[in-house]
């Protein structure tokens, strides 16, 4: 008999072993290298009685992967319940086991014998871990469905949307094609895709990211499942689209009484949408409870640290963020006892034992021996920041009328950047914020001279750089450096870190030989807080945070005046993100650097910038000093962006308005006439359809391009 392929083979251990009596199960655990190292088989929270039905109930879930490099204990005893009509969040940083535990629940983990799953899970009271793969398949998509992170890759590119939505109905419900088609039309209407009949015949590449995610949700809803697991459903989407998608999920949960498991790293989303939250760290739930309890009165030191490390729009801005030192532990070599112990300031010898998840109040439990004590409501409500005079009058970088058109032939023109003007004071930071496709990255590429601008000027220290050639272009390149978003793909995997950093020094002849260049590299590495031995590592041997430090060091070796940071922290985990932002701030103080900081995260931009420019479809719609722009946003787009960012202050059920912007960003290939924002603007009038708004000054520094503002 041929063994089933890996991707359909259900882990045999799990299926056999949940049928055993508890006593035996314990024994199996011991034999399997003590999977069950926890003293708390269940989450006390989970026993709580709530009106309605428990749809999904997970008990003591363990997942282990046997790899060449050793045993990875990815999930270590996770228990939680999901009731009908509620959203339960699993929140944590990458590698905390939130996705792996959900894939295990779906029976979607690869690996056959190399993967061990144990524990129990029941769906509407039926223990389904004991089922065969064929029975499990009948549940998947029928009773328990999943929405994945990347709507770009999660849909099959060669099948129409219609077929992909109909597939689960044809497989599970025995619908005729016609019936399935009609239901697909219904579903698309339900998830807010206009013109569903026509859209069903289209392919995924003909949809925008937000629309694709709506299609994913329609697929998940197809068979009326009782539980949907949404794994980072909006991480790849823009903030206004994110709000639309989560509002949609919220409506569906309320209306259809689905239980939704929301996996996310974004605490703001948890605050706004989740009823209950489970905070995960290194494969365990370290804190669980209602959202208001956990976010307002965190008890585990990790939760408290995480809440402090995330910059929030409605909290007072601090010069430096409070950070959690170190980095999440490797799952191959977990620290003894509490996994957070090495990073925890409150840790004691007692923490060498694993703390059990114990209940502190009716709907709050934590696994910490030294719970965080806060005084009243945490975090404190913010007061608006006073407007201080601008830090420096002298502009290092002045951009005026910068324009980039891409000509696609046959008269088609993408107006990627349109008449953009701003200046950045010496030693200051300009934050450039906007959604994808707004032209912020193109702008960075123009300033780096990786693209040739169509029109405009761009002066650094009074020297126009837009048409420099040869040696003078090379000199300019030294002065302007860049830090990219993804430190892994922007470092050559075959070069040791030091070699990658030495290269530009030699190319620019800033150092005579390799040895002197190496000295400079070590200086730069120590500036970013890396020991010089790191220079001998390859990028894959470092963590994400360390790699981003290398990315910054690579910019610093050239002793630049100006650094363009293109989404430098968006690929990093929350606790690491704070460390990197603090590093950037410290370096700026120490070296007098000037930054152009590009990001889509408004809270991050507010934290780091002196001046902020908001872009929409290639145009700067509003700019001003941080204090005035965030305190008094004038352009309706800026207002909408700010309103779309979820924060800890407004919890679910506290009378929050919904995501403010409807519709999608128009294509820059065919931008709307007049004011480009009028198609989505709540204030738009007929005038906005025709008149292109000029940028006008509200104060000396605050400018807005809107006739109605």
């Amino acid at each position, binding site marked *: 008999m041929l063994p089933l392929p890996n991707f359909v083979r259900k882990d045999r251990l799990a299926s056999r072993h949940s049928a055993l009596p508890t006593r035996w199960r314990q024994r199996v655990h011991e034999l399997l290298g003590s999977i069950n190292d926890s003293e708390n088989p269940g989450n006390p929270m989970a026993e709580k009685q709530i009106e309605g039905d428990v749809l999904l109930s997970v008990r003591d879930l363990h997942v282990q992967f046997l790899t060449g490099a050793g045993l990875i204990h990815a999930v270590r005893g996770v228990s939680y319940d999901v009731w009908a009509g509620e959203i339960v969040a699993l929140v944590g940083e990458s590698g905390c086991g939130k996705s792996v535990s959900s894939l295990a629940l779906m029976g979607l983990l690869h690996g056959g014998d190399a993967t061990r799953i144990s524990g129990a899970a029941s769906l509407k009271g039926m223990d389904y871990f004991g089922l065969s793969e064929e029975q499990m398949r009948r549940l998947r998509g029928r009773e328990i469905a999943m929405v994945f992170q990347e709507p770009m890759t999660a849909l099959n590119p060669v099948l*129409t949307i219609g077929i992909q939505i109909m597939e689960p109905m044809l497989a599970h419900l025995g619908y005729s094609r016609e019936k399935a088609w009609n239901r697909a039309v219904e579903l698309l209407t339900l998830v807010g895709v206009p013109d569903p009949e026509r859209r069903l015949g289209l392919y995924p590449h003909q949809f925008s990211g937000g629309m694709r995610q709506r299609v994913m949700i329609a697929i998940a809803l197809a068979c009326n499942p009782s539980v949907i697991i949404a794994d980072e459903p909006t991480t790849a989407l823009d903030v206004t689209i994110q709000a639309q998608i989560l509002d949609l999920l919220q409506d569906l949960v309320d209306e259809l009484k689905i239980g939704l498991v929301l996996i996310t790293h974004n605490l703001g989303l948890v605050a706004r949408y989740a009823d209950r939250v489970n905070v995960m760290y290194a494969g365990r739930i370290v804190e669980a409870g209602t959202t208001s309890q956990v976010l307002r009165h965190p008890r585990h030191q990790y939760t408290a640290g995480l809440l402090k490390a995330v910059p929030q729009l409605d909290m007072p801005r601090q010069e430096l963020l409070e950070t959690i030192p170190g980095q999440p532990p490797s799952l191959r070599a977990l620290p003894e006892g509490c996994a957070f112990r090495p990073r925890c300031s409150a840790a004691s010898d007692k923490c060498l034992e694993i703390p059990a998840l114990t209940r502190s109040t009716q709907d709050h439990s934590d696994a910490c021996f030294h719970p965080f004590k806060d005084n009243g409501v945490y975090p404190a409500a913010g007061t608006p920041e006073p407007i201080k005079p601008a830090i420096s009058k002298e502009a290092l970088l002045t951009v005026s009328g910068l324009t980039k058109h891409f000509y696609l032939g046959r008269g088609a023109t993408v107006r990627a950047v349109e008449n953009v003007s701003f200046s950045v004071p010496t030693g200051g930071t300009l934050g450039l914020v906007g959604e994808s496709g707004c032209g912020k990255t193109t702008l960075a590429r123009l300033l780096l001279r990786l693209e040739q601008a169509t029109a405009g000027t761009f002066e650094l220290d009074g020297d126009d750089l837009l048409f420099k050639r040869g040696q003078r272009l090379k000199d300019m390149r030294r002065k302007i450096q860049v830090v990219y978003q993804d430190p892994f793909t922007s470092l050559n995997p075959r070069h040791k870190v030091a070699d990658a950093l030495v290269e530009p020094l030699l190319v620019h002849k800033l150092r005579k030989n390799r040895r002197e260049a190496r000295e400079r590299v070590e200086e730069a590495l120590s500036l970013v807080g890396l020991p010089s031995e790191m220079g001998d590592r390859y990028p894959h041997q470092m963590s994400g945070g360390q790699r981003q430090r290398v990315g910054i060091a690579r910019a610093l070796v050239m002793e630049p005046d100006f650094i363009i940071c293109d989404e430098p922290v968006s690929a990093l985990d929350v606790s690491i993100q704070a460390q990197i932002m603090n590093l950037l701030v410290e370096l700026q103080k120490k070296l007098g650097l000037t930054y152009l900081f590009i990001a889509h995260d408004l809270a991050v931009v507010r934290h780091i910038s002196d001046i902020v420019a908001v872009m929409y479809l290639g145009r700067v719609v509003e700019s001003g000093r941080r204090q005035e722009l965030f305190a008094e946003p004038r352009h309706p787009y800026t207002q909408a962006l700010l309103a779309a960012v979820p924060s800890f202050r407004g919890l679910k059920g506290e009378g929050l308005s919904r995501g403010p912007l409807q519709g999608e960003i128009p294509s820059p290939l065919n931008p709307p006439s007049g004011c480009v924002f009028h198609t989505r603007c709540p204030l738009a009038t007929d005038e906005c359809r025709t008149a292109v708004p000029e940028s006008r000054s509200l104060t000396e520094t605050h400018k807005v391009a809107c006739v109605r503002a």
Partner: protein
Amino acid sequence: MLRYLLNRLMLAIPTLLGVATLTFFMLALLPGDAVETMLRADGGNPTPEIIAAERARLGLDRPILVQFGDFLWGLFTGDLGSSSWTGKPVLDEIMLRLPVTLELAVLGMIIAVVIALPLGTLAGIFHGTWLDNLIRIFAFGGIALPSFWLGMMLALAMLWFFNWLPPLGSNSLFSDPIRVLQQLTLPALAVGYRYAAMLVRMMRASVIEAMSEDYVRTARAKGLPASSIVRRHIVPNSLLPTVTIIGLEFALMVGSLVVIEQVFSLNGLGRLFVESVARSDLIVIQGIVVVLTIIFIAINLLVDLAYAAIDPRIRLGRG
């Protein structure tokens, strides 16, 4: 879609011109004189005057660029010149032998595709199992064994076990298809094996890649049966890279026909090619190269069409 097709057709023209130019000048630069070789072939000892007269008759005394222009114009009007050996038009010589070669090539391709796609899919889906290992060994054999040797072994085996050899003589596919099949199956197997081996490897790799794609995970999350995941999600996406290889490997296979036609005494293009080389009949060689190029371009045009049929992103344009 039409634009895509026209685009591909327009690209074919510079390719053909490039190959024609390259062939013409490479042959012109070759040492040795075709006329002299031809005149000496019967053991004669031609005087320089006779050689010169013969060169003038063939137009070889003209400047090289004039000859090239003549060749290009001929190409344009479908006239590939006349053989310097038999004096017959090259096009006639080629058309006489083209059917056998084409039939053999197409049969080889069909055999390869029919064998390779299922095997490659199986190997990919069950990768890491004994079935996969078996298929990989099979594929490895196809790459390691020379096709002429395999052809001889096949013929010998048929003779040994069944006392049967493929029929000889030239047969038309339309008048006697059975006989043509009898004649061509063994050589087609011999050349198709290698072709199949390449395709198996490509298909296996693409299937493995497709299996780890997010959309396959989505399909599993929908609870689809394994058979529809393979049929609808894995195979169509794995075909794209494999189809490319079908086009590229076709050219390699046509090259190996030169030898296999000798082994099975088939009077095809390959044989004509070998004979023409022996006779230094440059004009025929030139003609064969041009015809093979056209076939290659046509096959790759078909591949591009297949691409468009499989992938809506090409058919409908991006975004």
